[in-house]
């Protein structure tokens, strides 16, 4: 009971911090929302000009799904890297290190908060742009939500790997910039074209979501084996990610790297 309560408080504090920062930098937030909205609109407009009215062109629909996940992944994975970089330079990261909750738990709370906020914003914008363009996508929430959550778990795992690297490598910025493209590959390339990507995080989940949204597959049609692969992938990446992070943290504590100044 105590344990649940303290974790809930930890989550609430971090969720609050995220929302405060979104509000405090309102012009940034609005600019970001507007950009995403315009991109959605542009993609829907593409459907309009390419496909026949009412029937949605598959490639463009694919692109929309890809874009949503790419955006989410960048926020969660690279965002974590940049945030730790800032905190290590500022010195607040050491402060997190003195919390009896453990840094990894605080980072998890943040990831969850960011995941929820970003996903919520994307969904609202998606619906908003469907409304404005009069186009529609097949959004079967019952099927999508479990896939989405499992995909997020592998995303969190990847994010912890980046977090660990950021803690021990000072010049990570250049790497993070390049890593954006790796993340793009993981979200944009379909498994039918590169089957080995099933062993990588995120890709399998995005592939399944595309199957739902583009081909209209349901939970049953996707089948048990697909979910087994997705679940295994998510758990493996989460565990690898967390282990990597904790290893890097120990290393940083040996070498005195928690603060970058």
């Amino acid at each position, binding site marked *: 009971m105590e344990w649940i*309560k*303290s*974790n809930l*408080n*930890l989550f*609430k*504090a*971090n969720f*609050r*911090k995220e929302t*405060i*920062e979104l509000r*405090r930098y309102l012009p940034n937030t609005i600019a970001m929302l507007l950009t995403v909205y315009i991109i959605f609109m542009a993609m829907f407009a593409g459907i309009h000009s390419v496909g026949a009215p009412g029937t949605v062109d598959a490639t463009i629909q694919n692109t929309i799904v890809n874009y949503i996940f790419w955006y989410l992944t960048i926020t969660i994975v690279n965002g974590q890297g940049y945030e730790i970089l800032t905190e290590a330079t*500022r*010195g*607040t990261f*050491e*402060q*997190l*290190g*003195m*919390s*009896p*909750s*453990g840094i990894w738990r*605080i980072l998890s709370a943040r990831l969850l908060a960011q995941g929820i906020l970003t996903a919520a914003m994307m969904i609202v914008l998606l619906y908003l742009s469907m409304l404005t363009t009069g186009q529609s996508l097949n959004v079967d929430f019952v099927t999508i939500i479990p896939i989405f959550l499992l995909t997020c778990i592998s995303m969190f795992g990847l994010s912890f790997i980046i977090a660990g690297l950021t803690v021990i490598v000072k010049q990570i910025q250049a790497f993070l910039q390049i890593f954006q493209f790796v993340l793009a590959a993981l979200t944009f390339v379909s498994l039918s074209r590169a089957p080995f990507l099933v062993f990588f995080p995120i890709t399998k989940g995005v592939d399944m979501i595309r199957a739902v949204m583009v081909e209209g597959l349901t939970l049953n049609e996707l089948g048990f084996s697909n979910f087994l692969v997705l679940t295994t992938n998510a758990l493996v990446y989460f565990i690898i990610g967390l282990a990597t992070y904790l290893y890097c943290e*120990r290393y940083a*504590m*040996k*070498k*005195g790297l*928690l*603060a970058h*100044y």
Partner: protein
Amino acid sequence: MDSIIEVSGITKVYQKRKTKEKIQAVDNISFQVKRGEIIGLLGPNGAGKTTTIKMICGLLKPDSGQILINGVDNEKHRLRALTHISAVLEGSRNLYWRLTVRENLEYFAGNRGVSRKNVASRVEDLLQKFRLKDKETELVNRLSRGMQQKLAIAVAMLADTEVILLDEPTLGLDIETGYEVREILKAIAKEENRTVIISSHDMDVIQDICERTIIINQGKVVTDDRIEDLLKLFEVRSYTITLGEHLNEKQEHLIKERFLDYQYESNRIQPKLSVELLKTEDIYQLFDILKLNETPVEAIDREIIQFEQVFMKIVKGETTNGVDQVKSQSV
């Protein structure tokens, strides 16, 4: 259990990233802190104070040695050990600059698993006590350095831990805020059940607040004593003797040979001789030398030594250990 903190033989060597040069920041440091004690870690810049504090906070692993916090090994059970301590590290680097004063307090409490509701009254209390109430909605990056420091201390206080560590709490503050922070620290020190460790290179701060001081230099503990006793120890040994006549060469030579830190001001009518004695009884040796030429003694003064001088002497290597060594040689 008597000691809340037991540091045994901790050592830390840093390796510079580029040059691979090794720096022994902490070299076999041991000390114990009793519950409710107010301890000063005093030492010049680069002595190893911050490194020691970070190891106690579990932010840095010692290369060897062990740290027990309330009996809990802070390496084996890091998070459990952390429930007993909070700290303010050096500089104003421990706050979120984009959050307000109040948001910082609440966020850090949340990270320890405590809800806003649960800390509400204590947050009010601390805002009043630290005179930050009228700044509670101000962003931290708009606060003065002194206010930031006060907030950082308030954040540490809010954690309500038995032990609180403060690394150079008055560094970089103007005189007035420095004074205010000191008063706050004294008030904290008076609170029951708080064990406080303050590091500083400024002996004034330590003398003002702490009961006991551990002086470290080049990564080693050079003394660990009550400030009162340290002062006594040195005070008793410093004598200034006003003479009726000048010393002759032989006398001067003998004094130079036998006494450590001697000063002879001969360019006045009544020459003054200042000596440091290893033991009080050594004064008789001095009298013997004076007697050789029947030099008249006009007055003997025991010099009052300021803590600052004690500190300088200790850091210069004239340690109590050093004194013991010389003592055994002269016997």
